[in-house]
């Protein structure tokens, strides 16, 4: 029964408490073989504790953690078929690169022949594109290179699950983007399950095929990146994953019209699942679009004054003081606005239309 | 199991404190421990006494407020310095030393700061030769009486008819034996070194002091106490190195070990022998019939004394029989001055450890100046200790 489980990792009603503080509360989670799961949330949400319970550095207070269908409660870290890439890498400073990578292989019993160890170390280093660095001391290497050593060290034992604890946090932005692609490629090549812990929603969305958003020790939403972004389960998820503009309003009985404080009615499309009454409306910055002269979008048009313009290169962010609603953040593609003079400038009066699909309505009864 | 002597009881906290206080006061060892451990400068500074009584005898000259003396541990009645301060207003800082060699080393290095010190007989000619002490102006020491001094003990203070040092007290170097542990009767240094290897195996102590340790070994072999002849020293060295593995310790701080009965037998000076015997009657004091040392400690004033006037004043004070008698009762060493003997209680003068019969003194010799500076003896001692 147990070994027939298709899931690599399973949490069954797992709770972890440190004295009076409960870090993880009644988590149920299944990670299918070969998937790339991101545990996403702000610091203190319990994501790292979950990862450490998989790694064996923490034991659940209640519930069970299973790896490959086997219960892992009480099994020490060194007997688990998982390996971890630690935050800040935790490379052994007294070993060179090859020795770091070979460390796991040397722990194997029965012993592996030295020739085999050398071959597999070279293979792992090639995989993270560090051929030729075998004899280097780790502290002589750049952050990106150290990151690769940590990766090589973790995959050389061929774990069934690779755990990554904020692996890219210490890298600069450019390197981070490159590593995101590399990690994805690596995961596809190895075909093993990756579990990534991150507080960076962009990282989670870009790499993982399953995103688990956590807050205060609980799972708020589990889904694909698109699901989490486009259909956030609650205001917290909407707010944490991507940017939002937040409005208080009332959803009318038709479950499609929201009425703002100043009486303006906006049609946001049918929301059958949201009870009529007080709601919080979350509007993605890209949901608002500048209207050209003469353009109109009936019932979905607002007007305002540009207060700030932030040039991002590929796009532009505007802060717009929308009449009756206050400050809104709006992102616009540069699109046809290649010339600087065609961009709106602070002080300009503008008209905007919003896309109902990118407007999320949550009952104000929901905790956020 | 037999009931142990009180001294055998494990040391109590208060007893340890007492020992430490003794250590601090510098009374634990005479010639070794404090000097070697660096506590040699443990000092008892008597605080100033404003408005002190000014006796007319001291009023003639400005004595200042402070002086320092170099002497041996447990060698003075502490009241002496308090009384002197009360009489003159001069506070006395007491520096105690472990050996004559050490005293010489300090004064040779310069700026000792002493205005009075207490060298032993055989060192005085060397101090004089090196110009480290000056001839005493006896007119400033009216309390000294040449007539009442025993010349046997005062001769070495005079060089070429000039007086460089005045005697404090004399004494002997014999050995103390715990007779409840060692049953064989002992009379000679030959006995001492034999028993040290047999009945007292692991329980005997010799001084960490070239004069007495080498001297007694020489005597036990029938040689002169002060010999510096290479062949005789070689024989003495052979004996000492043969005995060494059997010794409890090479240490001039023997009172604690004798009292705890860790050691059963030790080379010993008169005053320590008297103290041990007084507290533990089973510890006998023996003078070797084959020889040994007799000695006198003197007062002398360094040439570079910073407060000569006070040095003379204290010396004169100490030469007053009324003051000196308290010193002798306190330190247990025999006096050289018949005026003081007359004042001592009968139980002191009749104590055969302090005042042995003349016959017992006959074989004893004074230490010779040459032993102080002879490199051969110093090297022998070093080889013995490091063997």
């Amino acid at each position: 029964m147990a070994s027939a489980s298709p899931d690599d990792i399973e949490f069954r009603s797992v709770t972890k408490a440190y004295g009076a503080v409960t870090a993880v509360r009644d988590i149920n989670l299944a990670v299918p073989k070969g998937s790339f799961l991101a545990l996403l949330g702000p610091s203190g949400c319990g994501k790292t504790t979950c990862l450490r319970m998989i790694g064996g550095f923490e034991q659940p207070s209640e519930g069970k953690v299973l790896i490959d269908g086997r219960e892992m409660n009480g099994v020490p870290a060194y007997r688990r078929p998982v390996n971890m890439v630690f935050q800040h890498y935790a490379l052994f400073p007294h070993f060179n690169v090859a020795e770091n990578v070979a460390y796991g292989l040397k722990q194997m019993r029965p012993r592996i022949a030295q020739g085999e160890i050398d071959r597999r170390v070279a293979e792992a280093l090639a995989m993270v594109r560090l051929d030729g660095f075998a004899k280097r001391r780790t502290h002589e290497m750049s952050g990106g290179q150290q990151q690769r050593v940590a990766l090589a060290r973790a995959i050389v034992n061929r774990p069934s699950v690779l755990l990554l604890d904020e692996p890219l946090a210490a890298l600069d932005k450019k390197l981070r983007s490159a590593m995101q692609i590399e990690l994805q490629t690596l995961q596809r090549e190895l075909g093993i399950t990756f579990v990534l812990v991150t507080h960076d929603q962009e990282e989670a969305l870009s790499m993982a095929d399953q995103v688990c958003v956590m807050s205060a020790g609980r799972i708020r939403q589990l889904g694909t990146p698109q699901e989490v972004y486009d259909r956030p389960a609650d205001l917290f998820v909407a707010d944490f994953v991507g940017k939002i503009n937040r409005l208080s309003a009332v959803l009318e009985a038709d479950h499609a019209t929201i009425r703002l404080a100043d009486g303006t009615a906006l049609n946001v499309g049918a929301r059958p699942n949201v009870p009529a009454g007080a709601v919080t409306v979350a509007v993605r910055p890209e949901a608002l679009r500048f209207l050209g002269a003469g353009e109109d979008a009936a019932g979905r048009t607002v007007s305002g004054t540009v207060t700030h313009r932030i040039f991002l290169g590929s796009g532009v962010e505007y802060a717009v003081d929308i009449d009756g609603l206050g400050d809104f953040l709006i992102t616009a593609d540069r699109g046809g606005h290649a010339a600087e003079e065609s961009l709106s400038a602070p002080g300009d009066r503008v008209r905007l239309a919003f896309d109902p699909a990118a407007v999320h309505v949550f009952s104000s009864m929901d905790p956020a | 199991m037999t009931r142990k002597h009180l001294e055998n009881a494990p040391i109590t906290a208060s007893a340890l404190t007492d020992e430490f206080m003794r250590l601090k006061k510098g009374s634990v060892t005479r010639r070794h421990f404090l000097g070697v451990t660096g506590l040699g400068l443990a000092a008892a500074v008597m605080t100033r006494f404003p408005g002190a009584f000014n006796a007319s005898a001291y009023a003639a000259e400005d004595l200042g407020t402070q002086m320092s003396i170099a002497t041996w541990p447990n060698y003075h009645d502490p009241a002496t310095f308090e009384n002197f301060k009360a009489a003159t207003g001069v506070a006395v800082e007491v520096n105690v030393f472990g050996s004559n060699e050490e005293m010489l080393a300090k004064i040779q290095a310069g700026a000792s700061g002493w205005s009075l010190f207490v060298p032993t007989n055989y060192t005085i000619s060397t101090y004089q030769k090196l110009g480290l002490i000056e001839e005493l102006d006896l007119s400033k020491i009216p309390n000294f009486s040449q007539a009442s001094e025993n010349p046997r003990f005062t001769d070495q203070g005079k060089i070429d008819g000039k007086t460089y040092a005045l005697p404090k007290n004399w004494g002997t170097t014999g050995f103390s034996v715990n007779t409840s542990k060692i049953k064989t009767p002992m009379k000679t240094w030959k006995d001492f070194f034999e028993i040290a290897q047999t009945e007292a195996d692991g329980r005997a102590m010799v001084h960490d002091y070239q004069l007495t340790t080498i001297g007694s070994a020489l005597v036990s072999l029938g040689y002169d106490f002060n010999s510096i002849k290479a062949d005789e020293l070689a024989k003495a060295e052979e004996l000492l190195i043969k005995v060494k593995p059997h010794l409890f310790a090479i240490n001039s701080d023997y009172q604690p070990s004798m009292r705890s009965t860790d050691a059963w037998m030790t080379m010993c000076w008169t005053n320590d022998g008297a103290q041990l015997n007084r507290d533990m009657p089973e510890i006998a004091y023996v003078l070797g019939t084959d020889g040994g040392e007799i000695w006198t400690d003197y007062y002398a004033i360094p040439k570079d004394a910073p407060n000569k006037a006070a040095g003379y004043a204290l010396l004169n004070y100490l030469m007053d029989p009324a003051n000196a008698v308290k010193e002798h009762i306190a330190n247990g060493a025999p006096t050289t001055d018949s005026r003081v003997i007359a004042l001592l209680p009968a139980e002191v003068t009749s104590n055969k450890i302090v005042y042995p019969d003349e016959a017992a003194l006959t074989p004893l010799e004074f230490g010779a100046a040459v032993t102080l500076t002879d490199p051969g003896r110093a090297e022998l001692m070093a080889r013995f200790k490091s063997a």
Partner: protein
Amino acid sequence: MALQQETRKKLVTLALVGPAGLWLFVFLVLPFIAMVVFAFGKRAPEGGYQPAFTFEQFANLGSRAAAFVNTLMLAPVGALACLLIAYPVAYYLAVKASPRHRLLLVSLVVVPFWTSLLVRTYAWMYLLGARGIPHLLELLGIENVRLINTPGAVLLGIVYGYLPLMIMPIYVSLEKLDRRLLEASADLGAKPVSTFFGITVPLSLPGVMTGLALVTILLLGEYLIPQLLGGGKVFFIGNALVDLFLQSRNWPFGSAIAVTLVVVVVIVLMIAMRIAWRFAGTRQVDLV
């Protein structure tokens, strides 16, 4: 302006290191020069120093060979004995002790330093003497045990006296050891014992080497403990120096021995640093 800045910088540097530099020059460098000069001189007939230029003193070093051998044997043996006892203590303090009690426990290690080593060694004289442990053994029917004035007593005194100096540097290096390295080791399949010998021990080597060097160097100059607990029968270079300067007043020979001792210390330090480099890489070597 720039020049002024430079001058200011120099003045600040001078103010910071000047006092220490002057102190060291007057009380370390000058005496050492004097010592080297004396080492080539002769002993005056009544003791002290007589100017000369001779290698006589160095040629005579052999006469203190026993003291050198004793010292060079005991210093490393004592340091190793300290290490064997200190490491588990330091490990417990740094890794196992609960953080709440750690400060208290660490200060307990340091507390003995509040009392002078002399007094504590003196206390050992009583504990090991006939009125101490042997007396308790006597009550149990074990008679005539002698502990004081044996080489064992000297070793005990040395381990007792120098243990804190060994514990502290090892504790510090274990305490700053990154716990994630231990987790990483376990994660890679290493059993706790393998982690201890493969990661913990090598990474605490700088502390171990510091402790060994510190204790060894201090032991090379030790004379108090052998004097008090060895009954003067155990003779070290320190004892030889005391005798030469305070008893036989042979300053030139004493100087020659002292200079030789300094050279030995420097060699010991260099070897220790070399070993520390080899094991721990070049980064973390912070001897003494």
